[in-house]
């Protein structure tokens, strides 16, 4: 059992992380990764995204979330990387990876980690446009609903 949590402003290499994660997940059989990317849509161009976080609380919250996933599913490994600071369109914001002997456990736990992280880890996104306008991204009701679904099951 191993948990790896990283909160950093620097970019990370998704492919290198996934490869290292899978290589270290001995006996796992099933490895799932999720990556969030700064959207880059021609019809709605972003200048950049800025991510604020609550240093100290962030690491605690992510560790708590990872431990909860480990307790719920038979996981051999969990990785969470989340960036903060200024990110350009197409840059990777964050990733989670899970490894389990069972495919459903790997999928469900990664989904769970994302739902919890999204509404319970202290990150706030701001989207800056080319005209100088910048707006805080609003939390979605569906994100809270997704969280509530895990409590029922």
């Amino acid at each position, binding site marked *: 059992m191993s948990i790896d949590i990283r909160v950093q402003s620097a970019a990370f290499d998704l492919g290198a992380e996934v490869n290292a994660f899978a290589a270290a997940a001995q006996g796992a059989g099933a490895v799932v990764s999720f990556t969030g990317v700064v959207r880059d849509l021609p019809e709605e161009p972003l200048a950049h995204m800025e991510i604020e976080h*609550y240093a100290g*609380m962030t690491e605690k919250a992510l560790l708590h979330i990872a431990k909860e996933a480990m307790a719920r599913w038979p996981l051999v490994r969990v990785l969470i990387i989340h960036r903060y600071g200024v990110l350009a369109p197409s840059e990777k914001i964050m990733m989670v990876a899970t490894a389990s002997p069972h495919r459903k456990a790997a999928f469900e736990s990664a989904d769970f980690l994302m739902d919890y992280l999204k509404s*319970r*880890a202290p*990150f706030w996104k701001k989207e800056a446009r080319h005209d100088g306008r910048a707006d805080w991204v609003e939390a979605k009701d569906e994100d*809270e609903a997704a969280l509530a679904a895990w409590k029922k099951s």
Partner: protein
Amino acid sequence: MVEVRYFAWLRERLGTDRETIASGASTVIELVAELRRQSEAHDLVFSDLAGIRAAVDQELVDMDHPIANAQEIAFFPPMTGG
């Protein structure tokens, strides 16, 4: 004395990311009432608590949570990570 921290739009509207205040509040909501008396900006920021979350010593809590012996109380909008 308690350290109060602000993030995201709360930080922007208050023009500061932290302040240290003398508080006699025993719950988060009581602290909010004290903070609203600090300035017009404070009063406005805390006028609708539906969009505000609180953490006591870096743990997310409800507004009626006790703050006895807390070192750090934080206020921020719903989180938008991931």
